[in-house]
């Protein structure tokens, strides 16, 4: 492949999403009052931290060339377990949600690496199973969390003036970034996505790393579920529908190749914020009173945005191929 265009391609893949994010923020700042006010910024961060966690797991999974469709219902399952355990305190609630997520992740890991079933279909199945488990545990309705133990602080509280869920997401992203760039585990994740057969023949523990990636994705989804329960004061067995596809969209918008082998943690975060801000801006726009777009436009705009990004990516990669 031609070098300069390759660099250009990677450059746009890496920085394009950041540029778009900056442009969107500038647009909002110039157009709306209070757009960059503390209240709006913090609530956007608070709300999107759940998606950020889910997208982070998805990012790792996609880098290995896989996909995890179960994250949405895993989050819902996690929120139910966390809500049920919240009367016993913050820690049991947190750990319970996490454990629920890890359990689903472990199922995924087993089915994909031991039974050798395509990730797409394996996680499709666990998505149904997690959904079923959540509904069973919650008895088909939402489960209130306990307001006495301080569990809701996990979703609604602040630490040093910054929302706790945003702290959790921030720490997760920092750790993930270090893991991906500076550990052999991280490099193996990238190698598997680039060429799994080669990675295995190179003697890299491909199966184990893949298993860990799905486990991590499940755990992060469980954590997102904990925040979900804490933020809305209830475990939501039917929440999380479509989260997986939102997460995939965020990862792709962030420039991670769906074929695997290329990807970055930072641009995934940018992708999440970008998609989140679209909703935020829609609200502000409606608030101005010039137009009145219903909330339904949100998904239309997100879809259009995804289309734009993948079309640009496709154009760029086609050009790189041609000059090869």
């Amino acid at each position, binding site marked *: *492949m*031609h*070098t300069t265009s*390759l660099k250009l391609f990677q450059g746009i893949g890496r920085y394009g999403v950041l540029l778009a994010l900056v442009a969107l923020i500038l647009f909002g700042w110039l157009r709306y009052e209070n757009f960059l006010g503390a209240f709006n910024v913090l609530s956007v961060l608070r709300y999107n931290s759940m998606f950020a966690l889910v997208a982070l797991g998805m990012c790792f999974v996609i880098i290995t060339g896989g996909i995890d469709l179960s994250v949405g219902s895993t989050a819902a399952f996690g929120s139910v377990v966390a809500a049920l355990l919240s009367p016993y305190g913050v820690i049991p609630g947190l750990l319970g949600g996490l454990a629920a997520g890890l359990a689903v992740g472990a199922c995924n890991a087993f089915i994909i690496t031991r039974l050798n079933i395509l990730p797409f279909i394996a996680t499709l199945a666990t998505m149904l199973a997690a959904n079923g488990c959540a509904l069973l545990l919650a008895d088909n309705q939402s489960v209130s969390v306990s307001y006495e133990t301080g569990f809701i602080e996990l979703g609604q509280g602040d630490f040093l003036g910054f929302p706790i869920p945003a702290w959790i997401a921030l720490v997760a992203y920092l750790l993930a970034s*270090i893991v991906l*760039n*500076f*550990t*052999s585990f991280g*490099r*193996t994740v*990238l*190698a598997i*996505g*680039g*060429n799994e*057969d*080669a*990675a*295995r*023949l*190179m*003697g*890299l*523990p491909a199966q184990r790393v893949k298993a860990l990636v799905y486990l991590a994705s499940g755990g992060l989804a469980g954590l997102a579920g904990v925040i979900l329960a804490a933020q809305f004061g209830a475990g939501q067995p039917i929440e999380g529908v479509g989260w997986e596809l939102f997460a995939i969209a965020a990862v792709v918008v962030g420039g991670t190749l769906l074929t695997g*082998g*290329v990807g970055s943690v930072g641009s995934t975060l940018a992708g999440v914020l970008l998609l989140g801000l679209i909703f935020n801006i829609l609200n502000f726009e409606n608030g101005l009173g010039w137009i009145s777009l219903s909330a339904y436009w949100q998904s239309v705009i997100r879809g259009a945005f995804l289309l734009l990004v993948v079309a640009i990516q496709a154009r760029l990669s086609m050009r790189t191929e*041609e*000059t*090869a």
Partner: protein
Amino acid sequence: MAPLLSMHGIDKRFAGIPALRSAELVVEKGEVHALIGQNGAGKSTMIKILTGYYRKGAGEVLFDDRPVAFSSPQEAQRAGISTIYQEINLVPYRSVTENICLGREKRRFGLLDWSAMHTEARALLARFNIDIDVRRPLMVYPTAIQQMVAIARAIGFEAKLVIMDEPTSSLDEREVEVLFEVIRQLKASGVSVIFVSHKLDELYAVCDRVTIMRDGRTVQVAPMADLSRLDLVTSMLGRELSQVLHEGHDTGEDDTREPVLQVRNLAMGRKVRDVSFEVRPGEIVGLAGLLGAGRTESVRAVFGADRPDSGTIAFDGRENAISAPSDAIRAGMGFCSEDRKLEGIIPDMSVRENLTLALMPQLARRGIVNEARSREIVDSFIKRLGIRCSGPEQRIRELSGGNQQKVLLARWLCMNPKLLILDEPTRGIDVGAKAEILGLIRELAGQGLGVLMISSELEEVVEAASRIFVLRDGRTAAELEGDAVNEQSVMTAMAHGHDGARETADV
């Protein structure tokens, strides 16, 4: 001194079919050991059992005086066995350094130490006289460099045994020399090498001893110097090699015929700059050149698989009328790709469906396939080409490489083409099937078919072709005809271009 590796009585079955029957392989310390045999003889299976890719059915493996049964390539690597596979098995998106160092990363404070790893990668590559930016993704470098990276990786593991499975298939002669130098270095430092290759010259150049396999058994083990080439081939095939090669070039009389294909000043991207050649009906034309000379790229453009930047391609009297493979096929061309598995067969489909893939639209009326007619055609081709299969409905993936290739040839022959383009038609095919296929190609040309053939095996092109165009760095460097069609002049043209070829032709 005990041998470094001894494998005894190894059995292995796939779905009940024996692939290895009590096979043996003994490698001494510090020797270069050749492992040869036809396709399906069991070499690869043997290696994959040793490296833990497969589990053996029965038998004993002793490595470094200890019985071993590796359960993964990783374990084998840790024990000191490094493998370089035939297809380059590296990760194209990742940097050269990562491709060399993954699996034994250097760490500082628990995190990866990139600068130390870059230094090591550079040092390893320096042994091959390669000086490249090791931070860039592997895919930006040419195939030969990638192959060297694979070897550097294997050596970097401080292996006691390095297995090379056809390591030279993508290297040019100069690079092969460098590789041999490295193999000699390894040997001098006490490392053993298992060298798998189909190229006899290479075996004699570097190997000390040879193990010959046939039908899953070890049939002969001997010092390389004690065996002649004929012995080697005889032992491999299990029969006397007769009339395989050596047939005259029939040229001259057809020179006045209008070419069926005429390519002028073809240019495409960076690989094809100025390529011209032509093929007359009934003629086998060879397209020779080193790897990366632009042979495959040129013929793909002719077939409409890739779009050229400039130049003219006249086929059957019409200029530049082809913009997709379907156009080429309609006009009367057939093309067998160099990669049978990736671009030729449809593994899950039957012999019949693979054979009639291109013909299908013509076999149909109003879009409905005429099965009876298709079966008739397939039966006739199975007979005519001697395709060995259990029947037209057998899945093609179950056939041997040579028989798969015959099916692919038949895919085009049943269309009655005017021109057949064959890119490496005998790659990965055992010697017997090779001779059959070359014989078939000659027969077809005798019936008036124009054949354009690419082959990296020089003697093959020289034997088969009546005219050879030599490409060099994306340009036609020489056109050789008549007496000039010999290995010496082709090689000279590959190395020096047209003037060199003329010199030798004059001599």
